[in-house]
């Protein structure tokens, strides 16, 4: 089984210095564990002008790193698509979104489209399926729920931050790993259609009343969060209190009657 992990050039969110993207290091861990269980080798792929701190990925368990050399600002998709098609990988892992670039998470989808592979988003865990050539993917949903999917390989899977933490950095592993540079395909980056300015956090919507609602509703929404304004029971018998709590939880749909 051949596994590829796509590594992008990230930036540290606080210092802004070049750094590997955490979710891609998590992808390396998933790939290494699958590879260790079922026999397979894991290759890291990066397309860009230089590897920089991505060589750290070797210390996090990656054995081989392939650098598709591109000059300056160029679109990584054609280089990656060519390398992936040539390598005939069974499983391709990517991060959910980069950190330090466009960060739109669109690249894995365009790659899947050009390669004609199925794509599964937001994996938190991987396991090989019972039938040969299938992969079980546990997809992370909101609020800790999961969805277990079974897909046919080859496939492209993006990894969610809820996946297990990256393997710790080991200096010896970083020395042992090899990296290889290959020429990439130069494709001019599409001209930017966006205007960029320094980031300014925007206030999140907190008022629960919608626009166009009456003054009374807006006032309620603004003040009721601070005080529950609900029922108060003073010194009930414990049994009565328990019944009250349970009825309230039932009304909220939490404790199901069995």
């Amino acid at each position: 089984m051949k596994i590829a992990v796509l590594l992008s050039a990230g930036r540290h969110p606080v210092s802004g210095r070049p750094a590997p993207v955490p979710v891609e290091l998590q992808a390396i861990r998933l790939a290494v564990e699958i590879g260790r269980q079922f026999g397979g080798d894991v290759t890291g792929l990066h397309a860009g002008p230089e590897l920089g701190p991505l060589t750290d990925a070797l210390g996090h368990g990656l054995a081989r790193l392939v650098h598709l050399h591109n000059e300056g600002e160029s679109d990584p998709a054609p280089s990656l698509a060519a390398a992936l098609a040539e390598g005939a990988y069974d499983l391709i892992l990517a991060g959910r979104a980069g950190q330090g670039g466009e960060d739109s998470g669109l690249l894995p989808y365009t790659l899947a489209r050009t390669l004609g592979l199925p794509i599964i988003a937001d994996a938190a865990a991987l396991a090989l399926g019972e039938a040969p050539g299938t992969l079980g993917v546990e997809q992370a949903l909101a609020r800790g729920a999961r969805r277990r999917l079974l897909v046919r390989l080859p496939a492209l899977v993006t990894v969610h931050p809820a996946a297990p933490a990256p393997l710790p950095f080991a200096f010896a592993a970083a020395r042992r790993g090899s990296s290889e540079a290959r020429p990439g395909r130069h494709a001019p980056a599409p001209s930017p259609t966006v205007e960029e300015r320094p980031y300014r956090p925007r206030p999140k919507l907190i008022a629960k009343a919608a626009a166009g609602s009456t003054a009374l509703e807006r006032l309620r929404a603004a003040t009721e969060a601070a005080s529950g304004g609900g029922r108060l029971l003073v010194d009930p018998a414990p049994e009565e209190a328990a019944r009250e709590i349970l009825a309230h939880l039932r009304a909220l749909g939490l404790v199901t009657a069995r």
Partner: protein
Amino acid sequence: MSRPRKDPRAARAAHRIAGGARPRFDLAAAPAPAGRPRRDPRAEERLALVPGTLRRRLDRAQRVAVASAMPPALPEAPEAAPRLRVIAEPAFLVAVVPDAPGGRLSAHDRQLFGAARMLADEGGGAVLAFVAQPGEDLGPAGADRVLALPVSGHDPEAKALALNAALAALDLRHVLFPESTDGGDLARRLAALSGEPFFAGAESLSPKAVTRAARGRRVEQRRVPPRLVNLAPDAVAPHAGTLHEALPVAFAFPQPSGGAVLSAEFIPADPAKVSLAEADFVVSAGNGVSDLDTFRALVAALNGTPGASRMLCDAGLMPRSAQVGASGTVLDARVYFALGIAGAPQHLQGVAKCEQVIAVNTDLHAAMIERAGLAIVADAQKVMPALLALLQQERQP
């Protein structure tokens, strides 16, 4: 002050009734307005008065034209149902693809409809909702048209293909998706499939500009809204006020073919393992709880995620990862059940986003009791076993 002097003769002449031989004056009639009308501060105040509150409250943000010098119009009887707004001939369509888990719109989906209404109302467009199962809440949410997607089970690729066909055939100016696991996935699939410009994770949206964070949240990108927009939660207020018709429309979707996903199975979150920040229902203990074994049994029986106040975590009775509050975890839970917690400001900060709070405390004046929707002034040590016994009794009929 340079107020013009009052001229009593001119004021009297203004009341003169035309015609007739003798001069007649009607002093009761209001004279024809001359110049700037006088303000009536009392009338303005009456309009700003919020009805239905015990204390007198004024809401000056109401954007009603203040009638001056006129007696305030009596408030009309409130309409029983919101007004229905029909858009018969839309100039264009703004499509919304809500997640609608289980056929019901989530809060994020409603915000999406609010954004779509804003974009559509700008130029006389209509909002089209693409849903798997048409529900009843689409009209109030702001959908003018509803199109049912021909998908069964979990098959995002088939959904994307169907949407791509609709995108090519219909006059869709924008398509909005929620930035969630399923919505984000579908939006990117459609973007890759159609090659349309795509804007991921928009943090603010108006007809003129959308913005998002990029380069590790150091740069804000902004442009006019492209065709495909993926909207982050809590960026736009949901729609309210008018009701829309949610008219079902027909569209010939291409026949779906088998996808690559062989099987899909939903696994609900295991509350014992899910992290506190993600939990939906948190049961939390404070210094008022001394019997922690009963507490743990109760948490397991209620199927909640355990939490604690800092006092218990400092004492080593609960793990630090269970601490709720400013220096612990800020919850995103829907329901918070606090046992023996006083409700210090540092603790309440962690509970600020919870919709429902239930508190058990011996102190009537505890801040937690004030915050709670159901507040019980009782000994937590006695309520916990009673609740456990009640749950056990119901489980074995």
